[in-house]
């Protein structure tokens, strides 16, 4: 196999492309809970242009789990980030409000800081309770991995 | 509502003959203990058993064209029509008049069947299978009507009769208002004509008819209250008249539990108290019990007045129930329904 000069860039592009396809379903901009609650038919459009609905009952559940002043800071769908950095048994939820909601729903103590780590059984439970207002996102740290 | 012209009966009415006939016919009814046995029989066995009863002629006559369920369904309706016609033929004067008034319910049934059949384009033979010429409309007349093309043709065939006003309710799409109007008309007529006769028997029949209206309304309340329908709509579906009409119409639209509590203390309560709970799954079970109650009521009344229209009425109600029971068992068996389910629906007084 020939190795062209820009091999480094090409390998990186390949990975970027893969991650992009894997996250194709995510919306380019997440919507605020307050806006979603006002919508006639709550839902959001993904980057692949598919519209997906959000269940009103779930939105209610979320709004019960977070104090009112946080509603405008909470953006949906919440992202369950899966990354090779964390290993295969864990996922991460970023953001203070999101962490608050997730922990409240899972019934666990919220760790301090901006990110919350949840483990696979919890992911399963979270997805069972909030199937339309959470999404998986795949994240990889390209810089660390590729610079040697 | 149409104005009724009632006949006048001058002479004191003789019931001895007709009640004697009915007493003899009553012994031929299928005894209650036969129903569980029929449920464990094969279809052919049931047909054979029915051949040993009053259904023999019909089974014999029809068995060359039909078999199985079809044969039995056909034979039972044919026998019902024949029996009732005979009753009307052998009676005179007031009993004849009262019997015919009662049998008009089969006219209503036939008119409904004709309209329903035409409504969805059923074939003539299909419709004729369900016609029971037991009332005023003769078999020939009904056959003629069954040959008509559309619902509208049948409705115009009844122009000038008492049914015209009820049939005018047809809106071209939905038969429901028309069906309700026909039933209401039947009971209206019944109450008027029976109440119009001044004999003791007429008064007693009126007592029964009022009870029947109450029970029918009660069934409607059970059905619609359970489904949570608005009071105003339920009240439209109640038959006017009846002894308890005011009390029952107040129950319309009540929450089911409250409605049930309100029924305690009525004479029919004891016959449904064990199954009428808030979580009852099938109103038809309650309906079967209430119908059984009605038959018992008719016979109880007739015991006090053996020489009146009441034994005849008791017989007619029992006969209708018997036919319905046979049909339920046969249909149920054919569909492979579990015996308990059929048993719940069979009405045993």
């Amino acid at each position, binding site marked *: 196999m*020939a190795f062209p000069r820009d091999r480094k860039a090409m390998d990186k592009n390949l990975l970027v492309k893969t991650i992009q396809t894997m996250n194709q379903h995510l919306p380019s901009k997440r919507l605020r809970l307050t806006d979603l609650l006002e919508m006639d038919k709550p839902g959001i459009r993904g980057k692949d242009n598919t519209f997906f609905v959000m269940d009103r009952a779930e939105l209610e559940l979320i709004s019960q789990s977070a104090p009112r002043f946080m509603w405008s800071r909470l953006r949906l769908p919440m992202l369950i980030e899966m990354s090779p950095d964390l290993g295969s048994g864990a996922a991460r939820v970023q953001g203070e409000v999101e962490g608050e909601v997730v922990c409240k729903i899972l019934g666990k103590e919220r760790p301090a800081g901006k990110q919350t780590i949840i483990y696979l059984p919890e992911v399963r439970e979270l997805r069972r309770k909030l199937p339309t207002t959470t999404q*998986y996102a795949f994240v990889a740290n390209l810089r660390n991995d590729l610079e040697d | 509502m149409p104005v009724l012209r009632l006949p006048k009966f001058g002479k004191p009415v003789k019931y001895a003959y007709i009640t004697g006939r009915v007493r003899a016919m009553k012994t031929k009814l299928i005894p209650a203990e036969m129903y569980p046995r029929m449920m464990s029989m094969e279809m052919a066995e049931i047909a054979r058993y029915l051949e040993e009863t009053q259904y023999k002629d019909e089974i014999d006559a029809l068995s060359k064209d039909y078999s199985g369920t079809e044969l039995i369904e056909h034979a039972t309706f044919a026998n019902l029509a024949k029996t009732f016609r005979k009753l009307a033929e052998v009676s005179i004067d007031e009993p004849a008049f009262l019997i015919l008034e009662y049998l008009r319910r089969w006219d209503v049934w036939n008119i409904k069947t004709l309209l329903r059949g035409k409504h969805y384009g059923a074939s003539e033979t299909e419709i004729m299978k369900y016609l029971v010429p037991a009332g005023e409309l003769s078999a020939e007349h009904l056959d003629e009507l069954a040959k008509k093309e559309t619902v509208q043709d049948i409705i115009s065939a009844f122009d000038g009769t008492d049914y015209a006003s009820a049939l005018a309710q047809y809106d071209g799409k939905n038969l429901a208002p028309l069906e309700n109007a026909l039933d209401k008309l039947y009971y209206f007529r019944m109450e008027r004509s029976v109440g119009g006769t001044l004999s003791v028997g007429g008064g007693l029949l009126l007592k029964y008819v009022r009870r029947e209206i109450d029970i029918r309304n009660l069934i409607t309340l059970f059905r619609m209250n359970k489904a949570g329908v608005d009071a105003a709509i339920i009240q439209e579906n109640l038959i006017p008249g009846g002894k308890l009409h005011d009390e029952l119409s107040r129950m319309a639209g009540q929450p089911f539990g409250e409605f049930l509590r309100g029924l305690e203390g009525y004479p029919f309560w004891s016959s449904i108290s064990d199954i009428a709970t808030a979580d009852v799954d099938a109103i038809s079970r309650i309906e079967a019990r209430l119908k059984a109650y009605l038959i018992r009521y008719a016979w109880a009344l007739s015991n006090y007045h053996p020489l009146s229209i009441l034994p005849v009425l008791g017989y007619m109600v029992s006969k209708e129930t018997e036919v319905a029971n046979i049909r339920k068992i046969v249909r149920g068996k054919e569909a492979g329904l579990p015996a308990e389910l059929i048993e719940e629906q069979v009405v045993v007084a």
Partner: protein
Amino acid sequence: MAVIRGTKPTRAVLIALKRRMKVAQTGHSLLKMKRDGLMIEFFEVLNKAKTVRKELVESLLKAEQRLHMAMAIEGTVAINSVAYSLQKEPAIQLESRNIMGVVVPKITADAVQKKMYERGYGIIGTSSAIDEAAESYETLVDKIILAAEVETALIRLVEDIDSTKRRVNALEFKVIPDIKDTIKFIGMALEEMERDNVVKLKMLKGKSQRRVAEEEAKKEAAKAAEAAARASA
């Protein structure tokens, strides 16, 4: 050992390959995560599908029983007529839900459950058996819609799990081992060349030493010859 064909065993290629290895491993673990996530979703839906199927069969049986009862009481003409009287047909709305790029349908139906007086038959003259038949068929339609939703989701998920799994396996059992092997091969080839060089150097060194020794010996010999000549002379 499956070495990528046409690879030149050079140090530059080795570095490129090592970089590639990291990309492949990152991709692999990401895809594995996706697969695990899909599996979670799949079992979730599978459980639902099982119960929905069971309920579907149950309500179908019940509906048939009720229908037969109603037919026995009212006659088939009445039942058929009721069936044809339906004014409002249930409208189905298709929406979608997205699980990791797998689009699964979300079906909602309007007007399946009808009010009793909207079904097109007179209440007074009919038996409650007909209500029960109609009701149980309405429940059945609801269950069918739910089953359609859940089972379609199941099929879509299986398809996606399958293709993700293929990619994971390709990476795990082909791409990554190949790169590993090639790296090993290049490493060995480079070591081999190293050893070659050492030997060559050693030989060169030996040769030059010998030449030096010879020259010295010659010099010595010449010197000795000179000295001998001088002595004899």
